[in-house]
């Protein structure tokens, strides 16, 4: 079979390239996984052993505060660990507007230069763990070491700690989160006579939006969850309506169920009433920041951008938690990411673990929260006389975010290697139903079937 021989040759070349660039081939990855128990399998680094690792973070893609903070943390880490050199890099996003951070790492693996530590989003957890060969951290360093890392004086939020686990094995250490928050332009609302808006439910939101529309004549509302790129928070809206995205055992796609359809129908209603602006993701937050949209459901991560916009435009920025469907409890999902070890070299793995521990330490969160505005996963830091207490007090805008941490639902990752396609199908069905006149029920159910067929 000449074809398979040649293919094998192709594969071998690729693997050989991996080996050349300092990574270990797939075979040894399997061994390390197989030999793993609950005891640490990676060596501790010798006192003179020099290791250098690469760290891919999407925070490095944006100039300014984001990059500066991460680079600052890296140099702090390097000064604490003189033998470890960390090179930060941004993901490859230029190749296409829709390229995700996961596909960036995958592209690099294809080229044989995957980063040693990668900051990856939760939507691909299944894929990252099972296909991309992220290292099972709890097996590498031992269960206890992981728990120790989560603990400490300011332990990590219990809801958060499990988010990087797959089948009881910890693959990713949760790193930075944001939750969907309802932002609003308090000045504009006050101008319309709304001083105490009721955003606790979607009905309340609808009423406020109607009043605004009557005053200004334009659609005031933008919901980033409803367009491509916002599927993570759409999951939260669906779950808030009692819907489900994927079954607990991650084998069945369920976003065609009644709860999901109901949530979509609610959004559709807002659009039909002319309250919703149809914008793509980037235009959407630009619209809010520049005052062209007055209420926006958007990630809490954009806080600093909105604050800058509000300052420039001379209006007051306020926010609150995600609205509820009647009395059903709100189930906000987290966007955000965990840190994964991609390296197969034991020394690099050891260094990577040190680095991850540092990046999720209270020291790091102090920087990350105050300078970038991300939620501190060690939320106790904001309480009492914790290091972030003063910051939280002076920043009322983070309060809804911290409050939602307690009700946090995981951002579900779709099963199998077609996870990204399923996500695309989901987003398209949601957009079609809300903005483009398709019937929500049939559209969502058809999408569910289509997605189910891709689960292998």
């Amino acid at each position, binding site marked *: 079979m000449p074809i398979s021989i040649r293919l094998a040759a192709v594969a071998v070349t690729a693997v050989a390239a991996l080996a050349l660039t300092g990574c270990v081939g797939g075979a040894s990855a399997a061994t390390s996984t197989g030999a793993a128990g609950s005891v640490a399998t990676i060596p501790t680094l010798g006192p003179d052993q020099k290791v250098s690792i690469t760290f891919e973070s999407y925070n490095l893609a944006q100039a300014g505060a984001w990059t500066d903070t991460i680079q600052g943390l890296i140099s702090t880490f390097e000064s604490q660990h003189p033998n470890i050199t960390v090179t930060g890099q*941004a993901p490859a996003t*230029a190749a296409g507007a829709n390229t995700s951070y996961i596909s960036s790492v995958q592209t690099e693996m294809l080229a044989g230069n995957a980063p040693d530590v990668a900051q990856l989003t939760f939507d691909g957890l299944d894929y990252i763990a099972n296909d991309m060969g992220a290292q099972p951290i709890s097996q590498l360093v031992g269960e206890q070491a992981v728990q120790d890392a989560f603990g400490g004086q300011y332990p990590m939020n219990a809801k958060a700690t499990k988010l990087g686990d797959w089948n009881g094995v910890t693959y990713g250490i949760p790193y930075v989160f944001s939750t969907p928050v309802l932002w609003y332009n308090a000045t504009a609302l006050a101008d319309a006579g709304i001083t105490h808006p009721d955003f606790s439910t979607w009905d309340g939101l609808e009423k406020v939006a109607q009043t605004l529309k009557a005053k200004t004549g334009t659609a005031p509302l933008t919901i980033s969850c409803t367009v491509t790129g916002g599927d993570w928070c759409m999951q939260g809206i669906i779950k808030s309506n009692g819907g489900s995205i994927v079954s607990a055992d991650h084998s069945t796609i369920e976003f065609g169920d009644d709860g999901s359809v109901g949530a979509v129908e609610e959004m559709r209603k807002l659009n039909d009433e002319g309250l919703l602006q149809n914008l793509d993701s980037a235009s959407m937050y*630009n619209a809010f920041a520049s005052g062209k949209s007055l209420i926006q459901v958007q990630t809490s991560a954009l806080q600093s951008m909105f604050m800058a916009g509000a300052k420039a435009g001379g209006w007051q920025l306020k926010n609150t938690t995600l609205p509820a469907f009647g009395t059903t409890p709100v189930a906000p999902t987290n966007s955000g990411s965990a840190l994964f070890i991609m390296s197969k070299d034991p020394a690099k793995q050891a260094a990577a673990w040190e680095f991850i521990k540092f990046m999720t330490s209270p020291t790091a969160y102090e920087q990350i929260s105050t300078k970038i505005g991300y939620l501190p996963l060690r939320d106790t830091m904001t309480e009492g006389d914790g290091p972030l207490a003063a910051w939280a007090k002076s920043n009322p805008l983070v309060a809804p975010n911290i409050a939602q941490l307690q009700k946090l639902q995981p951002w579900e990752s779709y099963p199998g290697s077609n996870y990204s396609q399923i996500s695309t199908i989901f987003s398209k069905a949601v957009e079609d139903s809300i903005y483009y006149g398709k019937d929500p029920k049939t559209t969502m159910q058809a999408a569910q079937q289509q997605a189910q067929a891709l689960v292998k």
Partner: protein
Amino acid sequence: MAFVPVADITLPVRTTATTIRSQDRARTTVKTASRRHIRVPAVVGHIVLIVVAFASIFPIYWMFATAFREPVDASAQTIFPWPLSLDSFTTVWQQIPILSMIGNTFVMALSVAACQLVIAILAAYGFSMWQFPGKNVLFLFFIGSWLVPFQVTMIPNYVLISQLGLLGTIAGVIVPNICSAFAVMLMRQHMQSFPRELIDAAHMDGRNSWGILLRVVLPNMRPALAALGIMLFIEAWNNYLWPALIFQHQSNALVQVGIRSFLGSEGDNWGAIMAASGLACLPIFLIYLFLQRYIVDGFVRSGLR
């Protein structure tokens, strides 16, 4: 009593001038008999063409107009930007290393164009000067490469470039583009119309094929080479997908890639975005302004079979 010059040999013209009804209508302008074509008054032609030309140039004008407005006026709809301001350009200048990006791109485009030209000259020479077994098959091989979508070759080539260790280098952008089948075809067209006698004469003078190429063919094809070279340069300059793939982590290496990521990060700052876009086009516009004849030639020839 003397010689007289005679003209009686010329038959006297007996015109029936009385039948000429019209008065003497002297025409002052030279007109070719345009009535051979569909008669459209020239005014209509001018109007239509002015409209089309306006539609063609307006977006480009608007790009520069927006870029030169004061940032607060960026959304103004006045036709002329006033007062003029360089603030948007300053923003671009501060945010991205536009000069080095343009410099890098220039080096890249120049190398690509030069390589493509050399390879095309060689191949076209081989194709147009000899008859040899397998020629047609090989030629088909060249034409066929046009039919392979870039998206098909993208991934394997990306892997190969990374194996060669060329990711993130200008060489990585250049190497897969060294051979342009399109350039080979065009070059072949030119060479086929090269006067055979000149080559035969050079053969008689004892030159070998290499010498003929260097001393006879190329010197006489300078205009065609210039036209094709400029065209390839523009192609390379405007290429965007492949460089974006190669320069994954350095979005500031090449201008197209840089502008692409600049667009994403600048939100609604149209003044800065237009300034950056304008700067990315500027070198090509300048080339067009000064070498328009060659460019038009190059593209026109590409249309001739």
